[in-house]
C-alpha cells in the first residue's frame, strides 16, 4: 500500500487513538545483593591464605640465608680464614640480588593485608594509593589530600590528609603549611624518622603531634578531625591536632531545669563534656579512659571516675561490658545502655541519664562511674538505685526540710501518677462502698449521660493526654507548649460537653498528668506511664485485687533487679546503711559516709565533725582573753 492521503489519515487517526506505553526505564527494585558482587567480597579465603603462605616462605628462606651468611662471616673473621673471607663479597652480592627479587614479594605480602592493618610506607605514592583506597577518594569528596614540598636546601615531598569540615582551616594554613613551606631554616635536613622528629620538635607549633606507624591509627586520627602528615622517605606519619568541626556550645539544661545550682548542660562534643566535668571536679584523681565502641563505625566512649574512690571491680566491670560490645554502630547512649545493662527486658532505667554537669560530678564524687559518649549531650551514671531517680542537685541547694519536702512530694506524685486512675477504676467498678454516699452519687450523676464504660472513658482520656504530650514535644518552639495547654483545655471541655467523658474523669486524668510531671527522670516517667496502663487493665479486670497483683509483681521485679551488680532497691531492700540521702535529705554536714551499697574504696566522705569551727573558739573571744 502506497503512502496515499488515506493511509496518512488512517495512520494519524491510529496514532491518536491507540495507546502506546511510554518508553520509561524499568523501575528500581532493591534486590538482594548478588554473591561476589559486593565491594567487600575479595578473593577466596583459602586461595588468599595459600598465596600468603608462599610469600612468607620466600621471605623466611631469604632471612635464613642471611643468618647463615652472618654466622659464616663471624666464624671466618674469628678464625681468620682468608679463603672464606675472600669469597664473602661474592656471596653478599648474590644475597643482594635475592633481596632485590624478594622486595616485590615483601610488598605483595604487605599489600595482601587489610588496608587498616598495613604500615605507613616510606613511599609517598604508596601511602596516597592506600588513602585513596581507604577513603574512596575518587567518589568521596570529604577527603582532601594536599601535596607540597617542605622548604630547604633539599626540598622534601610531603602530603597532608584531612577531612573537609572536620578541621580548622586556619590552624592548617598558619600552623602547619606556613611553617613547613615557608620557614626554611637553611640547615641540611636529616633523613628518615629523624626528619619527622625535627619537624615535630622545631617546625610545627601544633599542640599535639603524634608519630604513628599503623594506618589504623592514621585513619582514627583523620576521622577524629586531625590531619595526617606523610613525608617521602619516612616510615611514619605525623598526626596533627587540627580539630575544628562545629559544635553546639555549653547551654542551659533543657530537661532538668533548676532554679538554683549550676546552669551548665552537656553538649554533643565528647571532649567538651569531659572538660566540663573536669572543671567541676578539678582533681588529678579524676580518670578519663576512652574506649572505641562499634565495629564498622567506631565511636569514642569515655569512662570517668575518681581513681581513689570508685570500686575497681565496678570500673573493671563497666569496661568489660563496653569492650564486649560487638555491633556496627551505636548512635546514642540509650542504645549503649541496652547493650550493657543487667536487665534489658525490664522497663525501668538502670542508669541515671543526666544533662546536668553538676549532677554527674556529684555522682562521680560519690564513687560512681560516668559514661560520656561522642555526639550525645547526656552523661550516664552507673550504678544507680531506684531512689536516685527522685533526687535532684537542687535538693542540696535548699535547706534539709525543704529538700526532703521536695523529695516526698515527688514520691507522692509518682504514686498518684501510677495508681490513681486504676484506683478510681477499681473503686468505680467493684468497691463502690468505699466511697461516701454523696461522692458516690455525685460520680454516678456525672457519669449518667456518658455512653461508655469507665474503662473506655479512662483509656480514651489517657490516650488523648498522651497524644497532646507527644504532639507538644514534636511541634517546634513555643507552639508546642501552646498546643499542649490549648489542646488539653479545649479537648477536656469539648469531651465533657459532648458527654464523651464525665467531669470527674477529666479531673482524675489531669491530676494524674500533673503528678506524672513531678517525676524528675524522663525515662522513669515513661516506664511508669506504661506501668499505669498495665495497672488500669488489671484494675478493670479484678478491681483492687488486680491492682494489688500488679503492685506486688512490680515491687518484686524491682527488688530482684541489679544495676551493675548493685541491688536496685538498696538501701531499703536489701537493707544497707542508708545515710541521710534516700527518701529524706538530711543536713549535708551529717552525711559523713558515701552510699554504703557502692562499696567505694574510701567510704568516708567527711569526718564525724565536719564543721570543725563549732569546736573552736571564735577569734574575737581569743583576742578578748589575751
Amino acid at each position, binding site marked *: 500500500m502506497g503512502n496515499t492521503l488515506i493511509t496518512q489519515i488512517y495512520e494519524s487517526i491510529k496514532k491518536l487513538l491507540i495507546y502506546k506505553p511510554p518508553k520509561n526505564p524499568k523501575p528500581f527494585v532493591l534486590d538482594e545483593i548478588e554473591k561476589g558482587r559486593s565491594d567487600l567480597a575479595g578473593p577466596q579465603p583459602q586461595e588468599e591464605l595459600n598465596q600468603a603462605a608462599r610469600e612468607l616462605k620466600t621471605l623466611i628462606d631469604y632471612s635464613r640465608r642471611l643468618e647463615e651468611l652472618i654466622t659464616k662471616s663471624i666464624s671466618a673473621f674469628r678464625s681468620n680464614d682468608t679463603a672464606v673471607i675472600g669469597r664473602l663479597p661474592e656471596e653478599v652480592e648474590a644475597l643482594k640480588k635475592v633481596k632485590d627479587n624478594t622486595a616485590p614479594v615483601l610488598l605483595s605480602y604487605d599489600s595482601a593485608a587489610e588496608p587498616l592493618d598495613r604500615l605507613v610506607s616510606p613511599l609517598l605514592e604508596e601511602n596516597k594509593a592506600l588513602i585513596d583506597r581507604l577513603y574512596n577518594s575518587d567518589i568521596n569528596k570529604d577527603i582532601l589530600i594536599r601535596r607540597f614540598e617542605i622548604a630547604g636546601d633539599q626540598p622534601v615531598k610531603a602530603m597532608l590528609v584531612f577531612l573537609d569540615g572536620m578541621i580548622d582551616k586556619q590552624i592548617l594554613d598558619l600552623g602547619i603549611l606556613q611553617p613547613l613551606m615557608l620557614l626554611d631554616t637553611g640547615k641540611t635536613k636529616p633523613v628518615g624518622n629523624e626528619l619527622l622528629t625535627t619537624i615535630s620538635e622545631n617546625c610545627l607549633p601544633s599542640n599535639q603531634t603524634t608519630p604513628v606507624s599503623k594506618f589504623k591509627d592514621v585513619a582514627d586520627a583523620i576521622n577524629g578531625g586531625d590531619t595526617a602528615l606523610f613525608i617521602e622517605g619516612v616510615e611514619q606519619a605525623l598526626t596533627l591536632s587540627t580539630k575544628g568541626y562545629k559544635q553546639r556550645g555549653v547551654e542551659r539544661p533543657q530537661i532538668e531545669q533548676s532554679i538554683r545550682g549550676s546552669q551548665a548542660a552537656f553538649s554533643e562534643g565528647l571532649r567538651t563534656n569531659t572538660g566540663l566535668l573536669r572543671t567541676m571536679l578539678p582533681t588529678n584523681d579524676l580518670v578519663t579512659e576512652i574506649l572505641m565502641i562499634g565495629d564498622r563505625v567506631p565511636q569514642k566512649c569515655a569512662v570517668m571516675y575518681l581513681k581513689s574512690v570508685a570500686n575497681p571491680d565496678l570500673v573493671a566491670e563497666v569496661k568489660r561490658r563496653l569492650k564486649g560490645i560487638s555491633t556496627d554502630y551505636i548512635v546514642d547512649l540509650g542504645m549503649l545502655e541496652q547493650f550493657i545493662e543487667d536487665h534489658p527486658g525490664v522497663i525501668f532505667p538502670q542508669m541515671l541519664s543526666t544533662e546536668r554537669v553538676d549532677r554527674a560530678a556529684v555522682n562521680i564524687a560519690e564513687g560512681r562511674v560516668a559514661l560520656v559518649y561522642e555526639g550525645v549531650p547526656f552523661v550516664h551514671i552507673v550504678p544507680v538505685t531506684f531512689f536516685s531517680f527522685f533526687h535532684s542537685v537542687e535538693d542540696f541547694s535548699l535547706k534539709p526540710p525543704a529538700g526532703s519536702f521536695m523529695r516526698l512530694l515527688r514520691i507522692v506524685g509518682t504514686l498518684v501518677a501510677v495508681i490513681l486512675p486504676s484506683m478510681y477504676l477499681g473503686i468505680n467498678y467493684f468497691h463502690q462502698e468505699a466511697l461516701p454516699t454523696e461522692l458516690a452519687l455525685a460520680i454516678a450523676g456525672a457519669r449518667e449521660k456518658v455512653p461508655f464504660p469507665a474503662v473506655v472513658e479512662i483509656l480514651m482520656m489517657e490516650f488523648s493526654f498522651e497524644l497532646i504530650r507527644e504532639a507538644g514535644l514534636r511541634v517546634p518552639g513555643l507552639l508546642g507548649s501552646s498546643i499542649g495547654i490549648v489542646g488539653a483545655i479545649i479537648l477536656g471541655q469539648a469531651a465533657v460537653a459532648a458527654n464523651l467523658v464525665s467531669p470527674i474523669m477529666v479531673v482524675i486524668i489531669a491530676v494524674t498528668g500533673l503528678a506524672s510531671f513531678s517525676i524528675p527522670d524522663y525515662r522513669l516517667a515513661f516506664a511508669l506511664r506504661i506501668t499505669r496502663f498495665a495497672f488500669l487493665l488489671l484494675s478493670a479486670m479484678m478491681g483492687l485485687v488486680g491492682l494489688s497483683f500488679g503492685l506486688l509483681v512490680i515491687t518484686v521485679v524491682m*527488688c530482684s533487679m541489679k544495676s551493675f551488680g548493685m541491688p536496685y532497691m538498696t538501701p531499703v531492700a536489701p537493707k544497707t546503711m542508708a545515710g541521710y540521702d534516700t527518701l529524706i535529705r538530711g543536713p549535708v554536714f551529717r552525711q559523713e559516709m558515701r552510699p554504703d551499697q557502692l562499696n567505694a574504696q574510701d567510704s568516708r566522705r567527711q569526718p564525724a565533725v565536719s564543721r570543725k569551727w563549732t569546736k573552736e573558739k571564735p577569734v574575737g573571744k581569743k583576742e578578748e582573753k589575751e
Partner: protein
Amino acid sequence: MNYQPGKMGTAEGMAIVFLLTFPTTFITTPATLINDAASLGWLAAFIHGVISMLSLLVILYVCKQVPGNLFEVCEQLLGPVFAWLIALYYAIAFCANYVLLLRQYAENTLITALPMSEFSFIIVAYSIVAAILVGLSLEGMARAGYILLPFIVVTLLVVFLLLTPFYEIYRLAPWLGLGLGTALFAGAKIAGINFGVAAVAIVAPSFQNNRTMCQVALLGMGLSFILRTMVVFFYTMLFGVTVGREKMLPFFEMVRLVYLGRYVQRLESLFIILWVINGLLDLSFSLYFALYCIAYLGRLPTMRPLIPVVAILLSHIAMIPEDVVSAMMDYAVIGKTFFNVGIYAVPVLLVAALGWKKRKKVKQWAAG
C-alpha cells in the same frame, strides 16, 4: 545446685518468717483460736507463737553444731533416708499449705471483692502471680516483703486505733473463757500452722551466719506472734466469743466497723490491697519452699521448669474441696496434726540425734 538462693540478711529472713506465719491472721486463725480458747484466744496465739519460735531456735541450735541446710544436717545426723523423709514431709506440708490457703484466699476474694467472678478464675489468677513471683527470685520476694512490713504493722496499728470507740473490755473477762489450761493446750495444739518457720533452716546457707538466723527467728517470729496476739486480743474485745468464733474474715470484719464520720467509714475495701499482697506473698513463699524441697528430693539442678507444672497441679488440687468451709476445716485439721510434726517432731528428732552423736564421740574419745 543453682536452685539455692543468693545471700540474704536479717531483713529478708524476717520477712520470710513473718509472711509464712502471719497472713493466716487475715483469714481463719483468730476465729479458730477463739473457738478453742474463748476469751483467752489471745493467750493461745501468744503460746503458739512462743512454741514456734522455740522450735525454730532448737533447729537453729542444731544447725550451728552441724553445718549445712536443714536437709544436709538431717543427712549427717540421721542418715540419707531420714533426710529424704524429712524433705518429703516439708514438700508435702508446703504443698498442702499452698493448696489450702490458695483456696481460702480465692474464696475470700470472691466474697469480699469480686462477687461476680468464678472462683476458678481467681485461683488461676493467684497461681499465675505466685508462679511469676517464684520465678523472679526468693530474694526479690523477701525484699518486697520487707518493704511491706512497716506498712502492715502501721496499718494494723491504725486500724486498732480507729476501732477504739467499739472496744468492750469485759469481753475478755476470764469467766467467759474455758480456763487457762485449755488456752495453753489450744495454743500448743495449733502451733503447727507456723511450721513454715523451718524455711529459715531450709535455706540456711543463704544467710550470713547462725547469728543472723537467730535474729531472724526472734524478730520475724516475734513480730508475727505479737501482732497476731494483738489482733486476737482486739478482735475479742470487738466481737466477743460467741460472734467472734463465727467470722470467716476477722480482719475484714474489724475494718468494716470503722466509723469516724461520713467520710471515714467502710474502709474494708481499701484494706483488700493489704491482705491480698500478704496472702500472695505467703502463697509464693509456700510454693517456693515446696519446689525447693521437691528439687532437693529429686536432686534436680534447677527448680525453674517445675514452677508452671507444680503451680498448675496445685491450683487444680485447690479446686477439689467442696466449698470454702471444707477448705477451712481441712486446714484446721492438718494444722493441728500434720503440720505439728514440723514444729514438734523434727526439732526433737534433730536434738536427740545430735545428743546421741555427741555422746558417741565422747565415748569413742574415752575409749582412746
